[in-house]
């Protein structure tokens, strides 16, 4: 299963995490996450995924974008990630990911987003 296919499971993974939903309760934002070359558009409403669109959407606006290489996400989602691949900022520091746009909602809800983007780690490794 490709990293993008794993990320496509995000809505179910978040729906199963009552604690993360609780912590995201004040969050409403439209953002974009690129898994390698594949963009995903997320609409978060009170911390839950209200819309989740895979693939390019022409002229879709977004508040901020998190981009990572396929290698970055593949390593990040290992059950026990290796040093240097284990955190969003470890990825950005090594140049394997970037943060763009208005980062305020991201920083206001940083632990939520870190945990959200790490959710595919919970999927079975052989998928």
């Amino acid at each position, binding site marked *: 299963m490709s990293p993008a296919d794993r990320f496509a499971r995000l809505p179910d993974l978040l729906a199963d995490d009552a604690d993360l939903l609780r912590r995201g309760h004040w969050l409403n934002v439209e953002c974009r996450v690129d898994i390698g070359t594949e963009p995903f558009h997320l609409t978060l409403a009170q911390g839950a995924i209200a819309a989740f669109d895979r693939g390019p959407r022409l002229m879709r606006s977004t508040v901020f974008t998190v981009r990572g290489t396929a290698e970055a996400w593949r390593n990040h989602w290992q059950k026990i990630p290796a040093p240097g691949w284990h*955190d969003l900022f470890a990825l950005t520091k090594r140049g394997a990911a970037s943060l763009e746009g208005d980062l305020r909602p991201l920083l206001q809800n*940083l632990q939520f987003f870190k945990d959200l983007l790490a959710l595919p780690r919970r999927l079975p490794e052989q998928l």
Partner: protein
Amino acid sequence: MAPVLDPMIGRYLRLDIDGTRHRLYFEEAGQGIPLVCLHTAGADNRQFRHLLADPEITSRFRVIAFDMPWHGKSTPPEGWEKTEYRLTTASYTAAIRAFCQALELDRPVVMGCSIGGRIVLNLAIAHATEFRALVALEAADFQQPWYDTAWLHRPDVHGGEVCAALISGLIAPQSPPTSRHETLWMYMQGGPGIFKGDLYFYRVDGDLREKVKSIDTTVCPLYLLTGEYDFSCTAEDTLRTAAQIPGAEVQVMKELGHFPMSENPARFREYILPVLEKIASGS
């Protein structure tokens, strides 16, 4: 049933630092060689509570961990509300030396982590004769910044939560959840702008490149230990630093990150006990 008490005792010390009156909180336990512990940026002495409660250490060391000025339970200096806190190499060094002198410690060992590790390098550069040994955790002469500290203190982002969320990635994935979240809790409790002010020392004022080459480990032994999951002060940063200091002992700690003493006390113990043994035996 008798009360279950941790062994450390907390006191407040009155002292002058660079002519300013301070009231610093510290905790101590044990008897023997004074071992002064320096916490990380934006945190407080609680990071060392497991060392303070370890009989194998406190049987030979008087472990003392203080809250830096503006941190933890130390009272901020009079007029704090009119200034922006900024730690510098000079002010940090002065605080440590004043604390050791005020407690009349005889050539203590100093062990610091992160900014505490960086300042330990400066103690080795400038004041080695005052110390028995120096232990720098997660320390290097310089580290590449990995985020903009402007996010740490502004009204539209919760300072405590953003500080904790940023540094959460510096904790190794193997660290026990309870210890991880206790470490994060301390970051959530820092005063506004204090973590940012500490990082001024780390990023702007405390560049020790070139200077570490002057460290003489025959005057004062120096130990450097860094966790492999620390991407702020990487193992490479520490190894590069140690390579410039003849006689420095360096170790990369497996399955540990930037807060070894608080994020995984049991694992850290495996690394620090042999170092303390060497120091205690004078070798």
